[in-house]
């Protein structure tokens, strides 16, 4: 009986998890291409632009992505043996890229030409924190300063 439940959960997890992941990656890649023109950098120095005033604004994006039962099961087995836990890689990759994309979307919305000092924070959200090995889901927060061009500066007053 127990084994039937386990197999059902594994099958569900595998089928839906893989499908969701493929779909998500496709959408991430598409949007990344669309936003490719907007640079996101970890540098903190604002660009030297003297013809315009600069508007800066904090932008952020977050995403909470859950792992599926299949991957979690395989990962727990992997943790018994040690080594690369490749099962979680796609989870974190998806969450980071999704969060960064959401930040970029916001920046684009504000007509920014660059996002400076981009930072990425990851926190694990487990449904039951009592259990040692339970990474249920991860939240990734991406934030940075979106810089956009303001009014044109009259050269005779300021240079």
């Amino acid at each position, binding site marked *: 009986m127990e084994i039937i439940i386990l197999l059902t959960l594994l099958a569900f997890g595998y089928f839906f998890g893989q499908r969701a992941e493929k779909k998500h990656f496709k959408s991430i890649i598409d949007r990344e291409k669309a936003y490719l023109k907007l640079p996101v950098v970890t540098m903190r120095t604002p660009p030297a632009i003297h013809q315009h005033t600069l508007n800066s604004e904090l932008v*952020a994006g977050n995403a909470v992505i859950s792992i599926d039962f299949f991957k979690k099961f395989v990962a727990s087995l992997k943790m018994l043996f040690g080594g690369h836990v490749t099962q979680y890689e796609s989870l974190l990759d998806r969450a980071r890229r999704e969060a960064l994309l959401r930040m970029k979307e916001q920046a684009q919305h504000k007509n920014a030409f660059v996002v400076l000092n981009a930072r990425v*924070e990851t926190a694990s959200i487990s449904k039951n924190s009592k259990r040692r090995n339970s990474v249920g889901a991860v939240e990734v927060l991406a*934030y940075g300063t979106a810089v956009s061009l303001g009014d044109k500066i009259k050269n005779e007053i300021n240079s």
Partner: protein
Amino acid sequence: MLLTNLEQVPGKKIVQHFGLVQGNTIRAKHVGKDFLAGLKNIFGGELGAYTELLAESRQEATDRMIQQAQSMGANAIVNIRYSTSSVAQGAAELYAYGTAVKVEL
């Protein structure tokens, strides 16, 4: 209020600073949402309700930080940082901090 995680405000001059300002919220997950999240743990995928909840809470922490800065007479907060930590089972603290400054507009 001007918010940035840079050390200065691009194109503007900082004339005065008021020290550290901070804001936090601790949020627990909603039972109903938690149940759906439990289901999602089988199928995988984005937990939309959590994403929203955390974004909202983070906004609340940011608002509190802004309130502090406003009370000091600042018009900008620079070098903002966010951090998330789980303080208890099922509850998370969202924390925002930065330096309140006055810039020449």
